[in-house]
């Protein structure tokens, strides 16, 4: 089966609009227009979701629902779910990322949310400013939009200890892919939504491959075999909840997760090692590439380093190369240093940055470049 890519969505989008136009007696509230963000270097994609197929259910049971995430089309879809949802007196409050302040947090306290749906990095900024009573009042927090890191997990354990954090896997082109979470799943692990087909293709020796999704998004429009751009693997153990199907999302191909020959570079692993190297650098960015040498085709990693108190000393660079090579795992059992010894990667290179790195919402630190 040939897989669908994002470019194939032009025809799919047209089909969804036709479904909306010819919806007959179906109420408008069953449909919403969605737009993708520009993370894939393509034009924004616009298509229609029919909620009966795409709904996330993140507001299920919520009486006072807090929304704190990005695109307006997505927020409107969530408000619509509250309007048509199961709680007759449910209320919804949206906090825009640009308006977080102590005064707005006092208003959130007055609203007293019991459930929320948020982008992880954004809710961290908001939660830091909420009083303890308000934070403890949030019983369920659904998160979507990015993989959770150790830093996220530590934050939620410390700042929202009474909150059941539930990860939702949602694609802007498809809608909800996972169900709302059973309460047992480790982070970045999901059960597929019943109506969604999940497959992992082009798997490597570790069982890691491309996540491929099949799902209906309107009555007459089914996306069949869409390579979504994330890499994932099946989890062999069954979940305590009884669900036998669990997959783990490892990240976005080319962002959180880069395959470099047999090496796998994960931003989370670089973050872990950066924490071990706090005395040597404050922040980093990684450029990964494949280069041809007289030994063959090998991977090359360039680590850009920023240190607020200044850097650039040759000795410090050598220390960084040594420490990162020793501690950074690029496979389940082997470090960067091991891969260099095996001739699978070139020795790590370090360059000093003179200014702090620009920060985006998703804080992407890994980049694959072509040589």
């Amino acid at each position, binding site marked *: 089966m040939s897989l669908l890519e994002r470019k194939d969505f032009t025809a799919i989008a047209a089909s969804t609009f036709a479904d*909306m136009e010819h919806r007959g007696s179906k*109420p*408008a*509230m069953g*449909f*919403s*227009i969605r*737009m993708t963000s*520009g993370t894939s270097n393509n*034009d*924004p994609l*616009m298509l*229609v979701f029919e909620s009966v197929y795409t709904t996330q259910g993140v507001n299920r049971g919520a009486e006072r629902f807090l929304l704190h995430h990005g*695109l*307006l*089309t997505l*927020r*409107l879809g969530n*408000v*619509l779910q*509250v*309007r048509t949802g199961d*709680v*007759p*007196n*449910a*209320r*919804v*409050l*949206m*906090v*825009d990322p640009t*308006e977080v*302040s102590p*005064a*707005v947090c006092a*208003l959130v306290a*007055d*609203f*007293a949310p019991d459930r929320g749906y948020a982008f992880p990095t954004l809710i961290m900024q908001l939660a830091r400013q909420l009083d303890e009573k308000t934070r403890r009042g949030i019983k369920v927090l659904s998160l979507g939009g990015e993989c959770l890191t150790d830093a996220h997990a530590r934050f939620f354990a410390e700042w929202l200890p009474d909150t059941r954090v539930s990860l939702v896997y949602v694609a802007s082109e498809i809608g909800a892919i996972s169900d709302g979470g059973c309460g047992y799943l480790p982070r970045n692990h999901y059960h597929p939504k019943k109506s969604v087909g999940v497959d992992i293709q082009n798997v490597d020796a570790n069982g890691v491959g491309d996540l491929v999704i099949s799902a209906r998004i309107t009555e007459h429009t089914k996306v069949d075999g869409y390579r979504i751009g994330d890499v994932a693997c099946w989890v062999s153990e069954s979940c305590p909840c009884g669900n036998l199907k669990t997959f783990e999302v490892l990240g976005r191909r080319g962002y959180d997760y880069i395959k470099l020959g047999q090496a796998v570079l994960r931003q989370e692993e670089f973050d872990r090692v950066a924490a071990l190297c706090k005395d040597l650098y404050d922040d980093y960015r990684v450029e990964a590439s494949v280069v041809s040498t007289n030994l063959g085709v090998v991977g090359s990693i360039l680590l850009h380093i920023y240190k607020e108190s200044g850097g650039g000393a040759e000795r410090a660079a050598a220390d960084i190369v040594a420490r990162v090579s020793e501690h950074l795992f690029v496979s389940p059992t082997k470090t960067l240093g091991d891969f260099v010894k095996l001739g699978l990667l070139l020795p790590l290179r370090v360059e000093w940055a003179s200014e702090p790195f620009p920060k985006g919402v998703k804080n992407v630190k890994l980049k694959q470049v072509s040589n």
Partner: protein
Amino acid sequence: MHTNPQSLVDLLNAHSTSWYRDLWRGTQDFVSLPLVRRRQFIETPLSRRRYVDDRSLVKIVHAGDGPFLSEWAFAHIGQEPWGVVSDRPMVYLTDPHSAIEKSMWCYEQNRVPLIGEKNADIASVAATKYDIDSLIADPASVLRLLPCLKSRTKPLVALSLVGESFDPADLAMLRPYAEEIRLVLAFSETGVLGVAPLSDAPIFTAPDNTLVESVDGELVFTKLAMLATPIIRYGSGIRGVLKDGGSFVVENYGDR
């Protein structure tokens, strides 16, 4: 809708929420009630001025003196004349809370709205793809969509401009882009106070559910509906003159 403001006052005086009762200090007669103002919305948490427990949208309103919450039941949002019902409406407003509210108004009219993202380029691409036929915007946001409006081969059925004040001279340049341009005078906490066709001297008509009085030259509004926070003798700060049939002319929008 309450046809008689006094019946609404009687309900509020007997209600378990005491906000208005406390403000009115025993006054029972509608025409004698003290005015309520935005300042009192800012000073009072929403939880102490909620009168209904309906499925609703809660907005953050950024006023000059500080933010406050304004809650609107979806059913009441649908009753406000925010726009003209059309097949492919677009909502493009500077304030995201207001944008969500007006989009929900479209849904309450059984229409699927396109909500414009903040980025004007993306909003313009979306407007063109959806082939919008009406637009709810504000005087600032509509200017960001101007290149898109200029590129259209036919005018919109309607352009509804939502705001707390208007300068008709500045808006006249929008005439080629819509068959009908409506000025929708509104505050976030009150809903629509009046609607006027764009003209040099707009004459606003209050919606059916809205009673307008003039108190010492200030326009004072009452919504004849049991809103989440009811609007009873709301001092708008707008100086104006009443006309026949619930119409009014604004002399000065006031300094809010």
